[in-house]
């Protein structure tokens, strides 16, 4: 086996040094009843054969390589500068362990510190952790933090929050015997203000909104944080970080916890993972944040150094009193985001936001002109929007997919009342020709 350096001679010498006659003697502690069963997995293949096979299996997927995709809904196709995957493939980054030995991990630790700084800057929050599994689990941990902090038992979540996020939040809250209640949305896609005010009681420990929400609508959250705080609850805001060069960030909305999906920052869509949950908070909540934190300090010679810090919150120190059980997080994905944001910089993050605004608005205007399709031209959007068709979405798919176009996400599976509606996304990756072709193909389904 080409990954296993021991030779037969090594094995003999080593058994001799150990002082046993055969390898089996080393397994004496395993009850005989459990031994001797040969496992049988799929047949082994050479590297060349395996690569051919993987290529062949890959051909049964439609991907951005061979299709024009207008899918968003929490996972987005964005331009990734070539230097991002180049740096990520540095062996010293991707084959390193969690930086428990700071002297041997200054690269990882400084990158973590820079990532935290970038996320804090982008979200307008005081602190960020070193990453979480994904946007949905980040939200779940934020909900639990808020309930622990307030000593309350209920979370309110807008129904316009990503359906998977709400499901994951429910899984975590139910397992800890906490309650969850939803806030509906109005015809314009904005959360229902009256309903929100009615159910915002003193039992509520946290309120969750997402902007742009799952329907693509940028929520107007004017006054929301104040209302939430007046009731003694915390405000949790989910945002799309790539929108924050142009859209008002959680810090400017007065959020206590800012969470969401960092996949848009340099990570491919990867069929849903690995992704990057970002998790940022106000300074007040710093010592309650789950997960790793990198901090700046000095070494014994007074030199700048970086370490994992505030570890008293964590499972390997606190065991059953830890603030979360998380240990392995999404280190390399956080590095991707760190690289992406550093490359784009102050101007680039605004620019990419503006291009997304432009592409989505152009496409919405064009689709709005088609017979048999309706859009809401007044809804504030970032890079995706709802289209209502007077024919079944399946019909549109069956015409467009064979032509190499993935037209959008069917909304009826998430919101039963939204029959005929689908979600369309256009990012900076789309050219004018791409958008015009999509519109033309859509019109031909009529």
């Amino acid at each position: 086996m080409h990954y296993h350096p021991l030779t037969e001679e090594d094995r003999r010498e080593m058994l001799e040094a150990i002082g046993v006659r055969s390898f089996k003697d080393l397994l004496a502690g395993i009850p005989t009843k459990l031994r001797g069963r040969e496992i049988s997995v799929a047949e082994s293949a050479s590297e060349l054969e395996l690569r051919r096979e993987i290529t062949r299996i890959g051909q049964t997927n439609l991907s951005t390589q061979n299709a024009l995709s207008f899918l968003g809904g929490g996972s987005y196709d964005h331009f990734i500068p070539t230097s991002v995957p180049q740096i990520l493939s540095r062996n010293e980054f991707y084959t390193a362990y969690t930086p428990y030995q700071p002297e041997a991990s200054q690269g990882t630790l400084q990158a973590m510190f820079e990532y935290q700084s970038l996320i804090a800057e982008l979200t307008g929050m005081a602190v960020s952790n070193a990453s979480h599994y994904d946007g949905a689990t980040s939200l779940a941990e934020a909900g639990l933090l808020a309930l622990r902090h307030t000593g309350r038992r209920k979370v309110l979540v807008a129904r316009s929050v990503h359906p998977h996020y709400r499901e994951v939040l429910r899984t975590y809250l139910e397992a800890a015997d906490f309650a969850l209640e939803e806030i509906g949305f109005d015809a314009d896609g904005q959360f229902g203000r009256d309903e929100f005010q009615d159910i915002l009681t003193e039992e509520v420990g946290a309120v969750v909104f997402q902007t742009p929400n799952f329907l693509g609508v940028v929520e107007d959250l004017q006054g929301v944080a104040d209302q939430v705080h007046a009731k003694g609850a915390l405000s949790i805001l989910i945002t799309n970080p790539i929108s924050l060069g142009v859209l008002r960030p959680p810090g400017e909305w007065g959020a206590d916890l800012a969470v969401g999906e960092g996949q848009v920052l340099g990570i491919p869509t990867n069929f849903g993972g690995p992704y990057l949950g970002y998790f940022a908070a106000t300074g007040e909540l710093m010592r309650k944040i789950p997960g790793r934190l990198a901090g700046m300090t000095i070494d014994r010679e007074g030199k700048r150094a970086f370490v994992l810090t505030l570890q008293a919150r964590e499972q390997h120190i606190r065991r059953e009193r830890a603030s979360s059980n998380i240990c392995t997080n999404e280190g390399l994905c956080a590095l991707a985001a760190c690289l992406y944001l550093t490359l784009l910089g102050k101007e680039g993050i605004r620019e990419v936001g503006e291009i997304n605004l432009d592409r989505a608005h152009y496409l919405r205007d064009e689709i709005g002109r088609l017979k048999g399709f309706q859009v809401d031209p007044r809804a504030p959007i970032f890079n995706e929007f709802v289209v209502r068709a007077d024919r079944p979405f399946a019909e549109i798919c069956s015409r467009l997919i064979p032509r190499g176009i993935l037209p959008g996400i069917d909304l009826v599976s998430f919101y039963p009342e939204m029959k005929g509606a689908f979600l369309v996304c256009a990012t900076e990756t789309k050219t004018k020709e791409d958008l015009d072709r999509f519109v033309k193909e859509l019109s031909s389904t009529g």
Partner: protein
Amino acid sequence: MLIDPESKLSFEKSRPGRHGAKLPKSHFTKKSASSLIPEPLRRRRPAELPELTEPEVVRHFVNLSKKNFSIDTHFYPLGSCSMKYNPKVNEWAAAEPSFAGVHPLQPEETAQGWLRICYELEQDLKEITGMDRFTLQPAAGAQGELCGMMMVRAYHASRGEPNRRKVLVPDSSHGTNPATAAFLGYEVVEVKSNTRGRVDLGSLRRSLGSQTACLMLTNPNTLGLFEEDILQITEMVHKAGGLLYYDGANFNALLGIARPGDMGFDIVHLNLHKTFTTPHGGGGPGAGPVGVKERLVPFLPIPLVEKCGDRFSFDLNRPQTIGRLKSFHGQAGMLLRAYVYIRTLGSAGLKQVSEDAILNANYLKERLKDILPVAVDEPCMHEFVLSAKAAKEKGIHALDIGKRLLDYGFHAPTVHFPLVVPEALMIEPTETESKETLDRFIEALTQIAREIDENPDLVRNAPHSLPIRRPDEVLAARHPILTYRDWLRESTQQGGTKGEFESKEEPRLSFRS
């Protein structure tokens, strides 16, 4: 604070007007961005991200990478972490655009390749562990544990026994076990180890009762020892009405050797980033698939992947499921890497993994035990624990030995864990290290043992040859600087120069410690 140019932050290298990415300029709407979005919804103050060109960014990060140890540059005998070689063909597969460029919400018929990988990986993991079904959803081992314990809870609730509120955990367990149980509101009961480092059956018997929900066990345990009484243990827990949870952090010892399913475990999590060679990435992403026995299948999280004829599909309609654990379908990219690894090795290769891992560990243990005593001197599985308590008289701790190893070009073992061994050094060589490397490691520890006798300060003050000396962790925790903004505030308050090169200055931060 002394800041050498090598540890300057990207923010400190920033110059207004530089940018590191070229984006498409053309606008299709002919409208300004500000006219597209109402003013109250717009950002007011720009995000102060660094301004650097691409070559500066690349040099910055390549130089940072050089300050890391990694498995591709160093031996990492880190117990319970299975730091083994990460095959490059795995990385090739995961980067293939035909996989990486697939959107998770594409119609199933356009993602058949991905679904096939998930399905086939599940079949292999079932065979390897002896479990009946797997969820591939969990993002890491700790989330796998959470998933498993949520199923324990759902299982007991479904049988009208929600009062089973106690989770048993051996005193040698990983910190995540009690943390996970407590996260779900369980009362954690510690089970004692016996003098041979195994679960003490008397202690276990006394802890079991009508409130027992589950025993969480690592086998081989964190001392690297196989629980010889495992069949009795699982029987005792089952008789008391509890379930058995297998912490798969130490699974590298068992491929083709023994299966948790045959031992009587009901739930198993695996760390694909340990046994199945997906890279650690400096702290993730990992993946923590969870396998269960038939009676727990109804509670698995959604979605599962089903095969019908030649077609693969997601099953979302599972009424008793604990729900969704993660958006979309888990850490797909890591699943593909693990699939490629299993396919490369095949059944015989997998068995060789554990055999060589066990052989390497026993060889190291045998050669090292005269230098530092072994916690339990018996044949071990894939790892073992040494105790440096004798060195303590000279004021040397296990941590110091680990730090000194860094100077010799070896990553430190896991130190001060498991908690049941004083001054523990937990060593796991894995199967991808050669005998020559192990011999060099033995030489290094022999040399360090000599240093402890002759010049303990050399060890106590180690490392001496790395980018930094020992950092002040107490200062970091007491006075947290977690972002560049924190540092700016700090350096401004202290009359600093915003991160200018300050090589000649006295350390200032230390005044506060």
